Structures are given as structure tokens and as C-alpha cells.
């Protein structure tokens, strides 16, 4: 009877893999940048092109780099939450306005509120390529040392912030003794 058991055993092994697979997200591709220094950039700011925003401006504090665009539906979804975060001073948020029209983007911020300390204008998307952006919205968590701690794809929500970002922030700050008191 033993050889007649082989098919059901194969099915069993497959079922275990499938059950495990249901908990995984095949669309999630981890960023190769994690743990490395963030790609440096320097771009004109969105609202005032005479000013620049670059990776150097983000050093010294934990911060977020949020990739957004007015054509992106997910960005509209998460915008309210970003506004709340900015109001509560949760964490400094920088924007990377990606492949967008400058006037439309400024208008969007004026209408919906501007949660960003500043947004860099990446009209041709070159900086986004360095950062490995393949969709919007994407949110990078940047350490005070300029390293990429985490990358989140899809709209940011409070749940994701608490479940995914906060544990990493605590861990990071234990290692590098940065303060995260005002983040809690």
C-alpha cells in the first residue's frame, strides 16, 4: 500500500506550502536599499524652484520620504493620514513629487493640505529610478544617519505605521540611541 500513499503525500506537502504562501505577499519586493545609505539627490523644490531639497537636508533626524503624484489614486487615499501625522508632529515628512505637473501638484497641496516639510520635484523621474521606485505611493523610512531603514509600498495607514514602522524605529533607535520619544 505504501507506493499508493505517495500521491496524497505530495498533495500534503503542496498544501503546507500553499498555506504558508497565503500569508506571504508575492507582489512585495524588498528594496535592496534597506540598511544602505540612501541614494543622494538634489532637486529643485516643488513650490519654489529656486530652493533645493536633497538627501543632505534629511540628515540628523529620523524622517520619511514619501513618493507621491497627483495622478496617483493611492496618494489621495493616504493624504489625509499624512496630514494628521504632520499636525501631530509624528515625524518629519519629505515629499518626492514624481513625474508630475508642477502647477497641478502645487494646486493639489493648496487644496488638500501640505504635510511635507518640503517636496522635491522629480519631473522626469530620474531620482525615483535611483531609489527603485516602481509605483506610487511609496514611503521610505530614513535614519538620522541617512540610511534606508524601511520601504513601504501602497498607501500609508495608521495601522501600517503602528505595525510596521514603529517596531523598526524602536529597534533602530536602541542601536543608534536616537530619540524617538516624540514619535510614540
Amino acid at each position, binding site marked *: *500500500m505504501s507506493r*499508493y*500513499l505517495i*500521491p*496524497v503525500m505530495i*498533495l*500534503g506537502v*503542496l*498544501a503546507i*506550502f*500553499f*498555506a*504558508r*504562501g*497565503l*500569508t*506571504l505577499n*508575492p*507582489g512585495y*519586493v*524588498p528594496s535592496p536599499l534597506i540598511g544602505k545609505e540612501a541614494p543622494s539627490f538634489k532637486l529643485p523644490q516643488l513650490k519654489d524652484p529656486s530652493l533645493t531639497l536633497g538627501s543632505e537636508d534629511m540628515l540628523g533626524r529620523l524622517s520619511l520620504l514619501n513618493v507621491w503624484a497627483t495622478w496617483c489614486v493611492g496618494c489621495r487615499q493616504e493624504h489625509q493620514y499624512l496630514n494628521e501625522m504632520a499636525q501631530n508632529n509624528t515625524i518629519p515628512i519629505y515629499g518626492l513629487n514624481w513625474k508630475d505637473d508642477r502647477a497641478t501638484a502645487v494646486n493639489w497641496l493648496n487644496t488638500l493640505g501640505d504635510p511635507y516639510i518640503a517636496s522635491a520635484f522629480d519631473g522626469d523621474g530620474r531620482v525615483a529610478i535611483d531609489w527603485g521606485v516602481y509605483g506610487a505611493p511609496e514611503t521610505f523610512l530614513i535614519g538620522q544617519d541617512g540610511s534606508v531603514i524601511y520601504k513601504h509600498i501602497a498607501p500609508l495607514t495608521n495601522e501600517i505605521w503602528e505595525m510596521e514602522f514603529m517596531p523598526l524605529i524602536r529597534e533602530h533607535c536602541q542601536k543608534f540611541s536616537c530619540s524617538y520619544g516624540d514619535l510614540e
Partner: protein
Amino acid sequence: MTPELGQLSLILALCLATVQAILPLLGAAQGRADLMALARPAAVGQFVFVTAAFLILVQAFLVNDFSVLYVATNSNSALPAAYKVAAVWSAHEGSLLLWIAILSGWTFAVAAGSRHLPDVFASRVLGVLGIVSMGVMLFTLLTSNPFERLQPAAFEGNDLNPLLQDPALVMHPPILYAGYVGLAVPFGFAVAALLSAQLSQEWARWTRPWTVGAWVFLTIGIALGSWWAYYELGWGGWWFWDPVENASFMPWLAATALIHSLAVTERRGIFKSWTILLAITAFSLSLLGTFLVRSGILISVHAFASDPARGLFILVLLSVISGGALILYAMRAHRMDQDGGFQPLSRESFLLLNNILLIFAAGLILIGTLYPLFVDALGMGKLSVGPPYFNLVFLLPTLPLVFLMGVGMHSFWKTMPKSVLVNRLKIPIILALLFGVGLPLVVFGRATILTLVGCVAGMWVVVTAMLEPAQRLIRGEGSISKIRRSQWGMMVAHFGVGIFILGVTVTSSYSIETDQARAPGDSWELAGYQFVFRSTRDVMGPNYQAVEGEFEVRKGGRLLTVLTPQKRVYRVQQSPMTEAAIQSGLRQDIFIALGDSLGGGAWSLRVQYKPLIRFIWLGALIMAFGGILAISDTRYYRRQKQDQSQSPHDIDASVEKIV
């Protein structure tokens, strides 16, 4: 109110399916005729209520009832009526209802067409089908109710995905599902045989037409999907080894193996446990496909919206249905095997090799499809497996398979004298080599080794498939009219395989695919054809607007045709769609698709020359036609007694060795 009636119908159908699942099986086990007699009425009742539920959903689409969430998400009042019907099965919930409707249709057919079977056996088959129905209906009602209301109702629907607004896609899902789901019937026959712990040669004869029927639908369904991908996705490819394509192809391979194994079991009474295992495997691969498509476990271009809860439900369903059958198999299969005895050179051997190679091919595709999942689940990183893997590994089993096919067709049962075989195949070998090597070199003037191998293989199958009738015609060795329908079916289906191989080989060897930037007024030449880009103009469709390019295609200065590919933007979803224009002929297709506007009136164009690409789908249709011929053979429908009255000696000797 009407949508609620649909849901109520589905609940009633579930109740009847439960009756159909439990009582007849119980009756068969206890020998109670009263319980077994419930199987048919329950199956018919189930069919009636499922059909009602399905029609109610169709009606909701036709009258634009946007108070139904599923309708509001997948339809629009401007959508043409045919596409409103197609929208019923364009997303998860409705396509699941289609799945159920088709299963209940097959169940109805079994209930009606099983009068000649012993009652105990028919009750068990219907009982097993009832279990499958029950599982899928529970799944639908608990996780994916297509009748769910939207409060407040929407004024306008979100429209059908423009990619699916296509005639082939109206037909593709029902036909494909008819094949997929139809494999539940041989599955039911197999489990019923296991339950009764005996398997007669009649069993194989009963199972064959159902299996071939499901296989015919599966073949046509896959071919339609491939044809749609070719002209609608705008890339000019016809097969992409996408997980969802693989999900339909693996059951096809298993069903093909099953058809051949059933032939051995019917004629010789051997391979019994293997045949049973194949019947279980074929339907399990269908369920596996359903799981892969609907759980979001793999990345695919045509996966449905994913939901882990649904994935878990189907996984449990798959484990219960396939796992239950396989446990039963482990307990009972050893009682069925018996030695029939056959020589290494015999039709049995070739069919055994056919089965091994087909299952090997299905296994390699399964591994390639699931490999990203395995690696991810083991925490070993992320990767994807692409066409280079599949194209390579698929050749490993299929090349020997194709060459053995020609030999196997002309071998006798039990033992085949080598000299007779060689004598019989001498001329086909010469013809295949002559035409397989000669034609590509004469027509195209160049060929790689792989191209020649492919052409010889295709020619080999074409020639060997038609050898028998050709010999009868030419040499007068017996009359053509004496060839049985089932024998014709086998030969025609194999002929289709040969045509398919020729199409694949020539298309992949000699296609010319170019991307060009052109403006109106430009002219150029490709593969001996002259192209003139005349102009572009704006076109308004019922629910889209489009830019249409106009291209002259000339050969030797003579105008062949004017092609008008479109770039459409559908109003509701605002998604751009490429409608390729194709001048199709048996010998070649000329394919033009508009890419993007490059400014200044210029466009990026995809211009392709695809020789013999029609042979790919033509081959598949011929295969399916062969299947239909085989089913139409009267010997499957004769009563047992009559069949026994005909002694084997009555059968024409040459028919005996072929069938």
C-alpha cells in the same frame, strides 16, 4: 427583490446538493434503493435552481441593476449587451457562479446520461459530484456572494475591464470552465470505482466519452484564450507561460494522459490504478488552478482580486476533495492492479511512455509555476520563473513524446513484431524527413537545427496520423468507410497535434517582429511586403474613443489590404487599449499595432510578420474535432448485452490493432 431571489435559489441549490451528496452515497453503501433513487431528482433540482440563480445575475447585468455591488463594479449602462453578459463572469464572484452553473450542467448531463449504468455506481458518481457542488456553493455563499447589495445604489457602473471587452473573451471563460469543471465527471467515476473497490473494463468505456468531452472543451478554451492574447494584448505573442495559463494547461496535459490511459484500461484491463490516479489528478489540477487564480498566491496578469480568506477556503476545499480521493486511492488502489502482460514493443508500452512523458511535462510546469512560491515560503528570497525555463523544459518530454506518438499509433496491442513496425513506418519516416527538412529550406532558405527538428516532428505526426486512411485509399487495403469513428477521432486529433507543432515551429523560427517609429506618409518594407502609413483619424466607439491608423499593405506593388489598428481609451476606466489590426491568412499573419504617439504625428508601431501562426489554433481546433469524432462513436452508447453479443472475431482485424 430579484437579486435576493437569486441568492435564495443558490441556497436552495446548496440544500439539494447536500441531499445529492449524502443520501445516494449512504444508499449505495447500505444497498438501499430508496436513498439511491434520490440522486437523479436532487441533481435535476440543483440544476434548475443554479440555472435560475445564474439567469437572475445575467438579468441584473442586462437591466443595469447597480444596486448589486457586483454589477456596479463590473458593468456600465453604455456597455454593449453582449459584453454585459460576458461581464457576468468577468470577476471573481460571477465567474464562481459560472463554475457552479457549469458543474450543475455536467451533473445534469450525468444524471440524464447514466441510465445504462448500474444504480449503485450512478448513485456514487452523482454523490461525489454533489460533494464538489456543495463545497463550491458554500464557498460562494460564504465568501463571494455575487448578489450582495450596494447601499446606496450607484448611479452608474464602474464598467467592464476594457481588456475583456472582446468577442473571444465572451466565449473563452464558459468553454474553458466547461473543460476544467467537466473533469469532475471522470473524477466522480474514479472515486465511485474506488468506493466500490472494483473496476471493470466497462468502467473505462463509460468514462471515456465524458473525459474526451471535457478535454474537447478544455482544448478549445485554451486555444481561444491564446488567440485572444495574441490579438488583444498587442504584443503578438500567443503563449506567455503565465501562472494562469499554466493552471489551464496542466489539467489539459493530465486529461490527455488520462484519455490514453483509459484506452489501455478499456482494451486490455490493465493500468487500472494508474487511470484512477490520473482521473483524480486531472480534476485536482483544475482545483489547484482555481486556487492559484483566486488566492493571490502567485503574481499573474489575469489573477482575480486576491483575498487570503478566499484562498484559505479553496485550499481547504482542495485538501478535502483531492485529499479525500487520494486517501481512498491509497486504501483501495492495490486491489485493482493486475498484470495484463505485454511485450516491451507493443501499443501498451508506447501508451505507458506517453503517460509518463505527459505527466513529466505537467510536473515540470507545476514546479516552474510554484517555484517562486516555494522559494518565498522557505524564506530564500524572491524570484520569478520566465518563458526561457518553460520553453526549454517543455521540449524535454514533448520531443520524445511526439516521435513516439507516430510509432505508437501503428503498434499492435500486446506485442508488435519489429519487422512489421519498421515496414509500416518506412515511408512516413522518409516523407517526414524529406518535407520536414526540405520545406523550411526551400520556403525560407535557412533553418536552425531546432527548426528542422520541429518541422520533421510536425510532419512525422501529420504523416503517421493519416497513414491508415491513405494506405486504404492508395493501395485499396480495405475500405475507408470501415474505419470506426473513434479511430478517425484518434487520427484526426493526432493530425491536429502535427499541425500545431508545425505552426509553433515555423512561427517561432521565422517571425519578424519590429518596433518602428513612423509618421503618416512613410513607407517601408518588411518580409517582402510594402507598408504605407496613410493617415490617422479619430474614431468614436460606443464606450470609447480611439485614434485609428490606416496602413496599406502591398506585395509586389499590388494592394493586399488596408489595416486599421486602433489605440482606444475607454471612457469610464480611462485605460488605453491597443487594438491590433491583423491581415490573417493560412500562410501568414501581418500584424500592426499602434504604440504611443511620439508627437508631430509620428507613432511608435509594432509591425510583425508571423508565418503559419494560424496553424497553432487550427491545430488545436482539429484536435478538438478529433475528440468530438471519438465521442460520437456508437460503441460508447451500446447497452452492455449487445456489446457482449459481438465477439472480438467480428471486428475487422486492422481496426482491432488501431483502436
